[in-house]
Structures are given as C-alpha cells and as structure tokens.
C-alpha cells in the first residue's frame, strides 16, 4: 500500500526523492479521510516552499485541507492532470495524482520524515 521508497509526514503527505528532485503527494489515508476530492489548489512553478508550511490545498465538498510541504525548495511543476480531474487524487494518490515536483534546497530534511513502516504504525495508532 505505502511505497517503501517514499517518505511520509504526520500531516499525511509523501515525497519521493530522485537526485535533487522530489515528487510530493498526499497519502491514500489522507484521500480516504477527505472523501470525494473536488478541487486541488497548487502553487505555480518557481514558487519557493518551506518544510512544514502550506504549499496548497485540497478540497472536498465540505472541507478544505492544507497540504504541508515535506521539504523546502522551489516548485518545478504542478500536476496539470488535477486541474480537470481532481477525482484522480481519490483513485491514484501515490502515482498519477502526484501534486508537485520540487527542486530540493536541503535534501537532508528528508531524513526527518517517516519511513513507510513508521507511517503505517502512525496511522494505525491515530485510528
């Protein structure tokens, strides 16, 4: 369920790092909690984001959730698929429905994040 090569946050985001680039998304657990997602608000390329700060938001019919960035860096690309098909985030949160790709400013930040095993324990406890 939760890919081993991702790292996870307590706010239910994931990041997949390849070189100095990270792909960020929200977890399957997060989409499940939110219910039917109707809109995704993402930053423009070039935006500087900070670890732990909001980078955008995800909306269901009656709720808005901030997406907190797992790392600091500069946005390279926002997933265009989500503008027209926000439902993809419910269907494929760990692959096709990634949110943004970022150029990492401090790759060491990733070390603070949870592994897949940690995250599964974490959401198990949260329940």
């Amino acid at each position, binding site marked *: 369920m939760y890919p081993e090569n991702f790292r996870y946050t307590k706010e239910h985001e994931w990041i997949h790092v390849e070189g100095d680039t990270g792909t960020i998304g929200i977890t399957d657990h997060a989409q499940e909690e939110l219910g039917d997602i*109707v*809109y995704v608000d993402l930053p423009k390329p070039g935006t500087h984001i900070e670890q732990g700060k909001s980078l955008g938001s995800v909306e269901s*019919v009656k709720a808005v959730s901030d997406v907190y960035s797992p790392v600091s860096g500069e946005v390279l690309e926002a997933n265009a698929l989500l503008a027209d098909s926000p439902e993809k985030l419910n269907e494929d949160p760990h692959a096709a429905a990634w949110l943004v790709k970022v150029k990492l400013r401090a790759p060491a930040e990733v070390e603070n994040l949870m592994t897949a095993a940690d995250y599964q324990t974490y959401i198990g406890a949260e329940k």
Partner: protein
Amino acid sequence: MINKVRQHLSQNEALLFERSSPGKKAYQLPELDVPAVDAAEALGAENVRAEIEGFPEVSEVEAIRHFTRLSTWNYAIDHGMYPLGSCTMKYNPRINELVARIDGLAWAHPYQPEALSQGCMQVMERLELMLAEITGMDAVTLQPAAGAHGELTGILLIRALLEKRGNPRKKILIPDSAHGTNPATAAIAGYAVENIKSSSTGGVDLAALEGLVNEDVAALMVTNPNTLGVFEENIIRVAEILHRKGAMLYMDGANMNALVGMARPGDFGVDVLHLNLHKTFSTPHGGGGPGAGPVCVKKVLEPFLPTPRLKRSGKKLTFDYKRKNSIGRVKAFYGNFGVLVRALAYILAHGGPGLRNATMDAVLNAVYIRKQLEPYFDLPYPSPNMHEVVFSDDRQAKLGVRTGEIAKRLIDYGFHPYTVSFPLIVHGALMIEPTETEGKLELDQFIEAMISIAKEVETDPELVKNAPYGTRTSKVDEVTAARKPVLRWKPA
C-alpha cells in the same frame, strides 16, 4: 405510521429559458407620452447593445405557473416545523408583510427631504429604543444588513475605540464552538484569530481565557447561549477577565431568542452585540435573505457608530452626518428599512409580556424535545439547555448511520432536517431548535419521527442511509456539482 405526509402531485417544469418562444411577453407598458428618442443618437451607437441573448420570453400565465410550480418544490415554515438549530425558524406573521408594503413606507426614497421622512425615522427611532431596552444596551445602529454584517460593524467599533485609546491590538479570541462568520469577520476587520477551546461543559474555559487574555487581545466573540444552547454560566466572570485587561466582550446575538425578557446582555457585561432580526424578531428568511443585523453598544462605543445617526431635536428627527469618530458607513443609506418595519410590527404585536412568553415557550419546547429524545440519542453536553438542544450521532454511527443521513430520513416524515454537523465541537451533531412557534401536536409528531428513525437505524440502517424516498428530487450529487461547476444555463 408516518402521520404527517403522503404522496402529493408535483409538476415537472423546465427552466424559463427552455420554455421561452420568440415574441412572447408578460408585460404592458403605457403609451409613451413624450417623443421617442433614438437610442443610438442619445447614447452613442457604440453604447447600444444588441438583444439580450437567451433572455426569457414567456407569457404572464407561463410566468406565474413557472414560479408556482417551482415553489411547490420547497419546504417552508408554512408547511411545518423547521427545526434548524441556530437559525430560529419561527412563524412569519403576515401582518408584517402587509405593513411593510404600505405605500408611504415602501415607496419612501432614502433621499427624500427629512421633513417628508419623519414617519420612517420614527419607525427607526422606536425600534432603536425598544432594542436597547430588550438588550440592556445604550445605543443601537440599524444600518447593518445581516448578522455577519453586524458582526463586522461591531468588531470595527471595538477596533475604533481601542485605536482611540492608543492601540487597536492584534487578536480576537473565538471559541471553537462559534459560527464560521465570527473568524471570517475578525479577519476582515484586520485581526488575527485565536481559537479558544471549550470547557468540558461546553462553555468558555475560564482558565484558558485567563491564560490567553493580554494586551494583544482586542475582544472575545462569544455566542450566549452558546451553540450548544447552553447559557455561559460564567459570563460575568468572562467579562471581568476581559475588561481587566482592557479587552472587550462581543456577543453574537444569534441565540437571543432564548433571552428576550428573561436576561439582558447589557446586564451581564457585554460591550457590543448584534441581533438577527430575521431570527429573534420573525422577519422572513425568504430562502436566504434579506435580514437585518442591528448592533447594540454600551455608551463608550456610541461615538464610533456608523454614520449617519438618527438624532431627535424636539419634535423633529434628523440624521447626524458629522461624527468625527465614526467608523464610517457599512452600507448605503440607513439599513434594511423594510426588515426593520417587520421587526417593529412583531415587537408591537407581542409587547413586553408577549416577548417574554415567547422566550419561555421557545425554551420549554426545546427542553421537552430533549427529555423525550434523550433515551434514543446521545447528549454529549448534559448542562441544562435553553432554546435548542444538541445531540450527537455516536450511538447511530456505531451502526453505520450518520447525522446527515438521519436528517435526510426526517424529510420522509414531513419535517425539515435539523442543523447537521454543527457545532464542530460535537462529533456528528444533531442541532434542534423548535422555537416557540410549535405547539405540542407538531412537537409530538417530530419526536415520534425521530424515535421511529432511531429504531430504523437499529433494524434497517440501509433504509435510513438511502433516504429520502418521498421527495420529488432524490439525493443530489454535490460532488459532481463541485468538480464540474455548471453555474448558468446555456443553450444546448
């Protein structure tokens, strides 16, 4: 079994645009008694539009049938109990509609000379005085157009006073049980919002408040009784804690229907409050407005009230525009006068004793519902309730049925749902406010319906989850509406 409803004929009806045909009309203008003017010449050819594409073209009969058919798809107070908690859906007396339409009032222009506006101004003055007496406050502005608008006015008043004292301060404290308009208002008034957690009994946590109030806090916005329908037992202490640090107590008057004639905010330390005339004073909600949100203040805030202020000099009323400390206008003209007329009519009809009786009936009705439903639904905050009662769906949720689904099933029984999932401090809230309007018969039918649904949850949860069944429109797909917004009609 279900004794309030059976199936009823309900007409289909297309949109106006779909039932239009070229050349049809429902109007007749008089013959022009002056020479016609060439539009292109008078306005400039470049400023004259082509025909309004898609605009309706229907006959008078078609128009009235259209809107009448639409109307039959609505539930309304005139159909029966409308127990929306926090909304105070009480009966709207028709006499109020009649007097608001009296020519000399309805056709009064806001700029007609003051000498020809004395009647309107007297209505406003009388209402101001009566609202001041009802709330125990010193001065009232009738300008705000709605509750949220009154909130903004009230917070701007506080800001103006604190600014005058040298420091507008930075924060507004808001309990986590508050209406969403409170934080949104604070933000527009330029304040940061700090949430304050409710105590275990659902009220303002005094220790938490003591800890939070400092020189940065401008005010606490509190609803009293709060959104659980519970009177803030420590309200006087709350006011003291704030005042000691130079902060103000703002009261959201959404729940004044529990207090009129029994207790007055001005007597328990409130500095400023807004009223919702469309709740407490019976002006019709009309499917979502218009309302009116008068703001009542203590003397110290009076200099800051919006311009203009009504002023009496001898027998004459005038408007005072020269008020140097005023926050300015919050709305053009003087307020939603037509709504003010209706509210005054309501107060005059009831009189002092009548208003007090209405309050007692409103509370009696809510307590009665609580006592009857307590065996069937969980009551997370057992403090004595006033005009409304908040249950949680804990017991039903264990069987897979949530408050929203119970609410939809209530429709099949012929009632409008209660308020769903609010206040936020109650998980799965069912917020019920009967108002004084309901007699025992309607209350008992409601209680019977709620008990019946509670039993259905146990025996046949799927039945409840797929409700409603008896409505013309079945469960509406709100997800698609939000994902692919279609916000206007377009020709196919």
